[in-house]
């Protein structure tokens, strides 16, 4: 059968940030073998962050968020096999099979399948006006429904929920935001930033409900008409957007015998426990030097790109360390939030600047060393923190909280 002959030296599963960057980098480095991306979505690789920002708001068209123009992939001899989901992997024969039954062989397989949005589970959660924000199609569905919507209930007070709330307020929709935890951004940032973001969204008119869970949805003709909270309150609503995290897409690899915990377990070079199979991006749990080597998944563009580079170097036999310092950004209203490092494991938080001025930073220290920084409208702090976090600098805490002294000038004298 002719189909049996389809073989790629590097077969990338998933055309998101990680998969696209790997293909780009391989060609940039002069990789001469065949490269294919097999992607479940029907469109070429695009940037995901704008989905809850400029694309959702309509400020940017789809063409403007493409990672590369459509013609690029052909020019670089990267086969784009779109609208195909990889269902199974045979690590012995080194073949994959897609949902439509296509079988392909590989030299190296790079799993870059990201994650699927976690779905709500309470009664009524199968209603047609409950949305998620992960893919282009998700956001197009929201956009198509919005003209008929006056009140949106957002479930989840993480970055995506908050960004969606900001866009909905700009469109003048009434917004209720439910967060089951005690504070917004509770998983990722310090109390000072949570409190600030909470106040800011309220001031913009968002009805923020923390420590509030969902009991059920009241539905009519398969559509949510109200959200019923765990405190018994009923909120009439005509659209629900769930932003409650992702489940890593790793089923086929797990079935093939790969070691999977929260994501595919990989080593520092993104190798899975199966021969010639790598995993990168949101789906991979790698030993993170910024988290004391603990295996964690990092969901960010930075991580997707840096892991792509790590695998490209490995496949090209280039022994060059990749500096994968974590960084992240988020935009809500006119707020510019930026982070560098990973704050988990900090033993001290310092707030630098005044929350009331909407320009402040949170410094996270462990044993006197700066391990992470969150900034709000303080790009200068963000930039200077990058160097300090990279160096594991010791800060003089009494100086560091003074926003008028440059962050780079508050390094403690060596003991």
């Amino acid at each position, binding site marked *: 059968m002719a189909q049996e002959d389809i073989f790629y030296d590097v077969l990338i599963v998933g055309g998101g940030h990680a998969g696209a960057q790997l293909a*780009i980098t391989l060609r940039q480095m002069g990789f001469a073998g065949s490269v294919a991306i097999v992607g479940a979505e029907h469109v070429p690789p695009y940037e995901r962050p704008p989905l809850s920002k400029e694309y959702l708001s309509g400020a940017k068209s789809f063409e403007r968020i493409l990672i590369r*123009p459509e013609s690029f992939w052909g020019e670089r001899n990267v086969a784009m096999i779109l609208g195909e989901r990889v269902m199974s992997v045979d690590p012995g024969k080194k073949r994959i099979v897609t949902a439509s039954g296509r079988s392909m062989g590989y030299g190296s397989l790079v799993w870059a399948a990201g994650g699927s949005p976690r779905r709500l589970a309470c009664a009524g959660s199968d209603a047609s006006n409950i949305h998620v924000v992960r893919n282009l199609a998700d956001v197009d569905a929201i956009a198509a429904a919005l003209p008929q919507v006056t009140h949106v209930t957002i479930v989840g007070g993480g970055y995506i929920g908050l960004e969606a709330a900001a866009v909905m307020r700009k469109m003048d929709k009434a917004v209720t935001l439910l967060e089951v935890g005690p504070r917004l951004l509770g998983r990722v940032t310090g109390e000072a930033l949570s409190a600030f973001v909470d106040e800011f969204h309220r001031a913009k008119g968002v009805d923020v409900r923390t420590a509030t869970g969902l009991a059920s949805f009241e539905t009519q003709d398969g559509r949510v008409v109200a959200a019923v909270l765990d405190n018994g309150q009923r909120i009439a609503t005509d659209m629900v957007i769930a932003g409650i995290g992702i489940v890593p897409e790793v089923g086929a690899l797990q079935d093939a015998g790969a070691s999977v915990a929260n994501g595919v377990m990989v080593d520092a070079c993104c190798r899975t426990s199966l021969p010639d199979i790598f995993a990168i991006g949101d789906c991979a749990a790698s030993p993170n030097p910024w988290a004391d080597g603990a295996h964690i998944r990092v969901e960010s563009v930075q991580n997707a790109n840096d892991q792509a580079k790590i695998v490209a170097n490995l496949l090209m036999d280039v022994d060059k360390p990749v500096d994968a310092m974590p960084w992240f950004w988020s935009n809500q209203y006119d707020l510019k939030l*930026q982070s560098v490092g990973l704050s988990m494991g900090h033993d001290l938080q310092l707030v630098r600047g005044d929350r009331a001025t909407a320009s402040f930073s949170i410094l996270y220290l462990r044993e006197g060393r700066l391990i992470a920084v969150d900034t709000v409208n303080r790009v200068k702090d963000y*930039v200077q923190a990058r160097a300090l976090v990279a160096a594991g600098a010791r800060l003089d805490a009494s100086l560091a909280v003074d926003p008028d002294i440059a962050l780079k000038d508050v390094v403690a004298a060596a003991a």
Partner: protein
Amino acid sequence: MVHLNITDRAGVEHVVEAQTGLSLMEAIREAGFDDLMALCGGCCSCATCHVYVDDGDGAFKAVSEDENDLLDSSDHRQANSRLSCQLVLTAAADGLRATIAPED
């Protein structure tokens, strides 16, 4: 449409056509260059869209404080450094010469 002269990291100059209204970063990406990372997609949050504007900087708004701070994160900053995502192309940008800065 405007014409831009873009020099890639290998030192080769290319003439590209670009639509006005886009940023220079978008125009460079649209033209199929692969060196420009532009990781934050133009949010002025990453500095991976760093270019040197060799000729024609007058077509753009002055460097904002945020752009200036971010440019400071580059080891390759020069007097003519700009973040290309912050440069919106208008007819005045026709004939612009820019060079993609080295990767940090």
